[in-house]
Structure formats: structure tokens, C-alpha cells
């Protein structure tokens, strides 16, 4: 009887230890996708926080847009299949749906951003001019008011190479014009070039400058 008690105790201990590693496996294979769509959203950067703008008007020193590129199929959160209990007793104890992030890798990455103004910006910058160098950027994941200063667009381009996107294959960043617009309207054409030679291009909405 004493021996049986000891054996039961050891069996209990073994099963308790089985419970402890409660994390599920996270060996999720990456999914590959293409950037096929470019969306441009007006940003309101007149206050402390940058936020999506609902109107096509901006302050002359606060011209800002958000560029979002993604696969038109859109990738959302993927969950692994629930592990099936197949052994006698239980194999281990872990969450039935693993909270694993789905890695997504783009088949190509950004190699260039070109921004052309469709209207005069001021006396020095005229319609048709390449104004790429007058813009700075900020990643969407870094838009807290205390996040610091902007980065050059080259840095935004560089970080897309070999990037693994988790859960959603969406690259989003803001672009901010440095000089003030001295004209009543502004509009820009934005062209993104990718490593496979593909190009995505779109035009911002016609912006009315608030005086």
C-alpha cells in the first residue's frame, strides 16, 4: 500500500510538471506576398498628435500624408490549428489556440520613393519639380508625440529590405513636407519603385491650404 502511494505521488508529480510548459509551439512558416496596392491618406499634423485627416485642407507648414502599401488580398492574423489530444492522459497543457504571430515576408522591397509636386509650392519650388528631398518620414509604428524627430525617406526605404511583417503584410509610413506651402493649393504625385522593378504610383488629393 505504501508503495502504491509513492507511485501515485510520482505519477502526480510527473503530470504536474507536464502542465508547467504551458506555451504552445510557435514554429509558424512565413507567408510570402506582394505589394500591389498603394493608398494615400491625408494626415492632420497641426496639433501634438498626428491623426488621419477628414478634410482635404491643411495648414501651410503641416502638409502630411500617410502612404500604405499592401497586397490587395490583404493578410490578416493567422492562427495555427488546434492541437489534437491524441495520447493517453494528456500530452501537455497549453492554450488550445496558440497566440503565434504569423510571419509575412514581401517578395520585393522598396528601392525608391519619388515625389513630384503638381503645383508651385513657393517661389523656388515649381510645378513638376522633384520634391522628394523636401519630405521627411515617420513609420506608423512610431507616431507617439514623444517619439522624437523624423527620418529621411532613404531610411524608410532601407528598413523594408528583409523585413518580416507579423500578422499583417502592411507597410505604412507618414511623409511630411518641410517647407511651407505659399500657394492656395497643393498636390503631389508619389511613385514607389520596388526591387523587382514594379512601380506603384498615385496622386494625393488636391489640398486646399488654410490661411
Amino acid at each position, binding site marked *: 500500500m505504501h508503495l502504491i502511494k509513492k507511485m501515485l505521488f510520482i505519477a502526480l508529480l510527473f503530470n504536474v510538471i507536464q502542465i508547467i510548459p504551458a506555451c504552445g509551439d510557435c514554429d509558424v512558416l512565413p507567408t510570402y506576398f506582394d505589394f500591389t496596392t498603394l493608398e494615400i491618406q491625408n494626415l492632420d499634423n497641426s496639433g501634438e498628435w498626428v491623426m488621419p485627416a477628414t478634410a482635404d485642407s491643411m495648414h501651410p*507648414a503641416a*502638409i502630411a500624408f500617410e502612404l500604405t502599401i499592401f497586397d490587395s488580398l490583404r493578410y490578416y492574423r493567422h492562427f495555427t490549428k488546434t492541437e489534437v489530444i491524441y495520447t493517453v492522459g494528456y500530452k501537455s497543457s497549453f492554450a488550445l489556440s496558440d497566440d503565434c504571430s504569423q510571419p509575412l515576408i514581401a517578395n520585393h522591397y522598396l528601392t525608391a520613393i519619388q515625389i513630384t509636386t503638381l503645383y508651385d509650392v513657393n517661389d523656388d519650388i515649381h510645378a513638376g519639380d522633384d520634391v522628394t528631398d523636401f519630405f*521627411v518620414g515617420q513609420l506608423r509604428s512610431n507616431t507617439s508625440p514623444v517619439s*522624437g*524627430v523624423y527620418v*529621411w525617406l532613404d531610411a524608410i526605404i532601407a528598413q523594408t529590405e528583409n523585413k518580416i511583417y507579423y500578422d499583417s503584410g502592411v507597410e505604412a509610413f507618414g511623409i511630411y513636407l518641410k517647407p511651407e506651402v505659399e500657394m492656395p493649393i497643393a498636390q503631389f504625385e508619389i511613385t514607389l519603385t520596388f526591387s523587382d522593378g514594379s512601380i506603384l504610383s498615385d496622386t494625393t488629393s488636391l489640398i486646399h491650404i488654410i490661411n
Partner: protein
Amino acid sequence: MKNLIHTGYLIALIFTGIFSAGAQSAGTRPFRLDMQFGGRMIHRELQPLTENLDFLNYLNGGNGNSAYGVLRLGFSFTPNDRWTFDAGLGVFSDLFSSQLNVQATRNIKAISSSWGWGMMAGFEIYPQYLDEYNQFHIQKDVDMIGDLDKNYRQHTLYDLGISLRPFLRYTGEKLIFSFSTGAGLNVFKPFEVLIVQKKPLGNLRREISYETDFKPVLTSHSGAEFSYTFYRGEAVSLGILAKAEVLFGFRNLTYTRTILTWTADNAHCETIYPDKTIYSKADITGGVFVKF
């Protein structure tokens, strides 16, 4: 910082443990535990607002004066007639042990049956608060949103110091009184803070980072201690004690300021030396002790 304090306290305890055998054979009461409560007043002359931030203008209260209630726990060990070792911890109202002092005292010569003199060497670390130093930018940079961080800005500024002081002591039947004065070196523990600004109705962003320097300065240290034993039992003695300590020096807080505008390129770096002016700290505490 917390580790440093705990390590210092541990060293003091180990140090006292080394001498414990000798103390027991001496047949006296070599250990003293005390608990004191009192106040700490820090004064630093307010400096006029200039182009550069002077952190010490924002000592708790922002008017050049700070006052704190302090609870101190002390441990003292006297292994023989020549040496005494002290260790003390102090807490503010948050009861977080952020202050430490350790001290070694050597009696050098008896002048008479009651009077004697000696030397004491000590190490001390104590905190104080810098509050809302971002007000400098809010007041000065009126064309920008002075500080995008809306949290209450408070930084705990630690002052570290060592001192060497000759002392004069009167030892009576029940009363002990000592007075000491000497010199030391003090330094504010370096820290970093970041201010991020943005132009209203504009894209312009600016980042100002401050990194303070480790620059020890010569300081004056003085102290007085009074204790009175009102009960002597078989095993323990009880008494009251009071302490006063004053630190004095001409101090500033130098720093390197880095300003980034728009992007991290072309950082504008500058070392700033705010004017040195009188800085003083006075501690007055009183409490009870038990000797065993």
C-alpha cells in the same frame, strides 16, 4: 542606485562583523541602534532664466528651496575605545530606502578625562527631486509646443559625497556631545532627459537631449551630535539623540545638450556650464537609541 545603497550597507555590516569578537571581549555595549525623524532643507539660490536650462533651478518646489521629512535608521558599532563604525539608511515618505551613509570614526587623543578629538571619514548618498524642469522650455520656446510629454516631469537627483572631518567630543556620564567640521567631495549622479518639441500648425519637430556630467566639487561638511542615556539596565541602555549636519558648496550641474531638428542629422552639441552658486543642505533629526 538601490544596489549601491544595499551593497554599501552590506559592506558596513560585514565590516562591523569582523570586529565583533573583540567587542564582546571588551565587556562594553558596542552596538547601538537608533531611529530618528527630522527634516532636510536644501537651498540653492534661484538663477535668472537664461538661454540655457539650469536644472538646479527646479529643485523640489521650484523656488530654490526644498524640504523633506526624513526617517533615519542607524546602526553603530564600537569595537574598542579607538574606533566606531556607523551605517544609516534614510527614507522619505515613500519609505523607499534611497539614502545611505557610512562612517568610520577614530579617536586620536584624549585632551582630558571628558574631552577628546579624532577624525571621521564618511560616505553619503541622498536623493532630492527635480520637478517640472520642462517648464524652462514651455516658458522659453513659445513658438513651439514646449514639451510633448505631458507626464509630470520629476527626476530623482542623487548627490554622492565623501568627507573627512576632525571632531571634538565631550563624553560625560550620560551625555555625549560631538562637533565636527571638515571638507569633502560631492558629485551629482549623472542622468539623461529628453524633451521633444513640435511646432503648432506645422510639421517641424525638435528633440533636445540633456546628458549631465560627472563633476565632483569641493564641499564643506559639518555636524553635531548629542546623545543622552536616561536608562542603563542589565542588558541594554536607552537614550535620546539629536543630530545636525550641514553641507555647503558652490555648485552647478553641467551638461551636454544635443539638439536635433527635423531629423537626427546635423546634431548640434554643446556643453553648458550654468553659473556656480551657493548650495546647502541641512539635516536636523532627533530620536531614540538603544545600546546593547
